[in-house]
């Protein structure tokens, strides 16, 4: 059958195209442009090829930041995921206290990032901070401004405080969707508490848990504001994560070329990890629907 081609429909896509171009494509291309050129201001560009990429790939500074970044993400995932599951399992299922818990859990998520940073920056200060002061009173030598370990602990505790709720709430939603009959059947089958968790709760939570891990991984991998406000990346470079390093390089030192190359690689890494998660997730769905 002959169909008359009507290409006017393409115009309907145009607004989206324009928006995406201005919000993503053009800025990204600007970065690409910087990454392959050398510039001394005045919009003068000199072709540099892959020089910046080579420099970045071999840069110790970047390797160190990447190492710190991976360590940070690994630690907070190792704490927040089990803790979130544990909290979700122990939250009341319904009634007044369930609502109270939900509101309390949601609170940290609603606080702007730099406010979270400021809260902990003050909280941990040895001179006026509630935490820092009393730790000092107890005779514990705690000072996040000059001890790298203390700085790390502060930043990690802060992230756990800020984001564990997200994992807990997602898991809670997953748990709520399990029909009561499953628990009843488990009681009839004489399943242990561990077996109930292992064979009923965990499989039913798997989907949301994966989303929680993805979100927490992405967010922690790109973390900037909170540690920047608390430690400024210090002491030394001990809490300088990838984003903080990137900003230092681009704005502090005005090394736009290397910073642009760095950005693009950073972006590709995150894209890769997201893709892996997406694949795993869709496979899980497929198995479910088989």
């Amino acid at each position, binding site marked *: 059958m002959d169909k008359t081609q009507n290409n006017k429909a393409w115009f309907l896509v145009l607004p989206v195209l324009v928006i995406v171009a201005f919000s993503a494509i053009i800025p990204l291309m600007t970065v690409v442009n910087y990454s392959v050129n050398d510039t001394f201001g005045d919009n003068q560009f000199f072709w540099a090829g892959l020089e910046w990429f080579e420099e970045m790939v071999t840069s110790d500074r970047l390797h160190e930041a990447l190492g710190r970044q991976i360590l940070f993400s690994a630690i907070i995932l190792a704490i927040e995921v089990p803790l979130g599951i544990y909290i979700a399992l122990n939250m009341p299922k319904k009634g007044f206290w369930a609502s109270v818990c939900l509101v309390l859990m949601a609170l940290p998520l609603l606080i702007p990032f730099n406010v979270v940073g400021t809260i902990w920056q003050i909280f941990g200060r040895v001179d006026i901070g509630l935490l820092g002061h009393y730790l000092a009173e107890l005779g514990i030598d705690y000072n996040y401004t000059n001890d790298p370990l203390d700085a790390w602990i502060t930043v990690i505790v802060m992230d756990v405080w800020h984001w564990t709720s997200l994992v807990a709430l997602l898991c809670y939603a997953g748990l709520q969707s399990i029909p009561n*009959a499953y628990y*009843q059947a488990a*009681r*009839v089958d004489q399943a242990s508490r561990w077996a109930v968790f292992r064979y009923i709760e*965990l499989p039913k939570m798997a989907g949301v848990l994966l989303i929680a891990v993805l979100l927490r991984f992405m967010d922690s991998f790109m973390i900037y504001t909170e540690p920047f406000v608390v430690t400024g990346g210090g002491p030394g470079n001990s809490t300088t994560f990838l984003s903080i390093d990137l900003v230092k390089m681009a704005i502090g030192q005005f090394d736009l070329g290397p910073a642009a190359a760095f950005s693009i690689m950073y972006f590709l890494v995150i894209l890769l990890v997201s893709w892996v998660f997406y694949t795993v997730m869709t496979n899980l769905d497929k198995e*479910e629907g*088989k």
Partner: protein
Amino acid sequence: MSQITLKNLAHSYHANPRGEQDFALKEMDHVWDDGGAYALLGSSGCGKTTLLNIISGLLRPSQGRVLFGDRDVTDAETAERNIAQVFQFPVVYDTMTVRENLAFPLRNRGMDAAYIKARVTQIAAMIGMDHILDRKARGLTADAKQKISLGRGMVREDVNAILFDEPLTVIDPHMKWELRTQLKQLHREFGHTMIYVTHDQTEALTFADKVVVMYDGRVVQMGTPEELFETPAHTFVGYFIGSPGMNLLPAEIRGGTAQLQGAAVPLGAAYGPISGRTQIGIRPEYCVLTEGDGLPITIKRVEDVGRHRIIRGDVAGSTVNVIAPEGMAVGASLTHVRFTPDRINVYADDWRVAPIGGAV
């Protein structure tokens, strides 16, 4: 295995029930004989599942005791009661294989591996899943999952009772019949007490030796399928069992006749004085259309259901259904309906009244 006794049992989901209307299960005394096959029949929300969950210990009754044999198990945990229960919707452990699913209740009780293996093989053959034992339960159809649930319910040999909570709701009709037959066979073979909750009368009548009909939180009658059919103890039983249900007509009872708005209907037996709202009940199967004998009937509709025809009519302001056997001509000449006298039951305030001389 043991007899299950319910003593003064009642249950309310309210913390402080104010009156009878707050009780999901009204006070009852009841004995389930060891090795019986019971069906618990009733419409949705009549308390069937509540009763079942109390027996299995998933729910603690607000009052009364539950006894297994001589042992009071009211406060005993489900696991302690050694009961199997199959739920309305399939419950399978998704991440386990079919084999692991079936073995799960045995493994939790520390049975030895050889026994588990033999038992699982046997049950798998029974539910027709022996060829997919090593598949993951995730992704099987609802049918298959429910069969696994049934299998898990039957895998333990030493249970006190097996409780089924509308287990065949999600199974397609052909399979339903097959599984029901298998359950029945299993019952004959092992003699477990089985309690089968359903709202489907065919299912109840074909499965059980004794059918327990519940209505509004009460057990209104417990009897063989025949008893339920011939002498329903409550108008609800008359209405709920049978297709269509029993015809009920308001009438005044005087000795051996019922007065229906001036017309006299002979009864099969004599009755003493009855107080309250009186009705007579007659099954459509025992109504005969005639050309002048009996009560005048206005025929509204005739439905042919294949094996017989159902005539929907109106007698003295009440709806009356008549079942006409196949081959009988239904014409305009049939203007009256005759009730077979000894098949008529008399009800006062919905409860059956026994005639004088008390033949049941």
